[in-house]
């Protein structure tokens, strides 16, 4: 079958409609970046730079690799007490994010692991869910 100009237009319109519709279902695109801006940037900085000796940086932070397995639970439960990041001691309470789902934590972690020059090992949702077993268990997608 040969398509006339009208059919082509129709086909194109259908294709555009499908693409637009798909866009509606990919709200999770850039979820990590969005969550970071909402929940982390005010303290850790828009570029993950931290704040002097008050708030540790996330960009170029050696802590992320050294404490990789405890990161999911830290995001959910928060963190208190002294930590050392890039040789500097920090002691500021970090609030938890109890409402974040496992997949949101995964997206957030992967945003941090791959932003501002960070080239950390990315997480799978399975890995994150496994770690979250140590702090109250999975909370769905």
């Amino acid at each position, binding site marked *: 079958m040969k398509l006339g100009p009208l059919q082509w237009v129709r086909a194109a319109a259908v294709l555009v409609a499908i693409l637009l519709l798909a866009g509606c279902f990919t709200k999770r695109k850039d979820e990590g970046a969005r969550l970071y801006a909402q929940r982390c*940037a*005010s*303290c850790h*900085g828009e570029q993950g730079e931290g*704040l*002097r*000796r*008050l*708030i540790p940086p996330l960009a170029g932070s050696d802590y992320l690799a050294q404490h990789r397995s405890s990161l999911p639970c830290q995001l959910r439960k928060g963190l208190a007490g002294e930590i050392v990041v890039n040789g500097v001691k920090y002691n*500021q*309470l*970090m*609030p938890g994010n109890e409402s974040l789902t496992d997949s949101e934590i995964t997206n957030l972690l992967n945003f941090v692991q791959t932003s501002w020059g960070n080239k950390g090992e990315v997480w799978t949702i399975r890995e994150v869910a496994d770690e979250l077993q140590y702090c109250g268990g999975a909370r769905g997608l």
Partner: protein
Amino acid sequence: MISSVFRRAVHVSLLALTGTILFPACSSKNAPSETATHLPYYGDRAMQPEPISGPADTIFTVPSFTLTNQDRKTITNDTFKGKIYVTDFFFATCPSICPKMQSELLRVYEKFQGDPRVLFLSHTIDPAHDSIPVLRDYAERLGIKDASRWHFATAPHDTIFSLARAYMTGAMEDATVKGGFAHSGTFALVDPQRHIRGVYDGMEPSQVNKLMQDIPVLLKEIEAEKQTAAR
């Protein structure tokens, strides 16, 4: 032919008219402040009874205060005599807006670090937790070594909260927010006569830039007044 020329002319003039209407609307927003030689006065004006001259229109004045800073020194209005200062309200364990707000104020501090006429005053709204050692640690972690330039101050709760109102900052206890206190990230600019001359949202870099433009304007105004007084 005539009608098309006419139509064209109408189009063009309409476009020009819209342009003239819209253009100032876009550009005038910040323009006056850049050329202003005087800053406005903030706060409610009150008619005060004057025994001799009759009721007088009085500009809002920051009330008298006594606070303690991170060096355990008592600070009062006199500490800021002949100076201008910028205030804000924070607490050390604040997980929401404070770090962003303090990093913005740090930007202002660093710009005017070399000018002893400009001071900074941060009040804790959580005096129960933020003891003097906590305030000192906080200041040092921010990189502030000279307490006489940037005071991190505490006082009884009621004093702080009424000062927050005076400096046009919303601050209250609120168990529903993270950290237990709700407050706005307002910076207030105060002149040597204890009048508020600028109020800025410390969470908005553009407004903090405006503060950095306003400080030299206020300094110039003060120098001009000094010269008139000396004459």
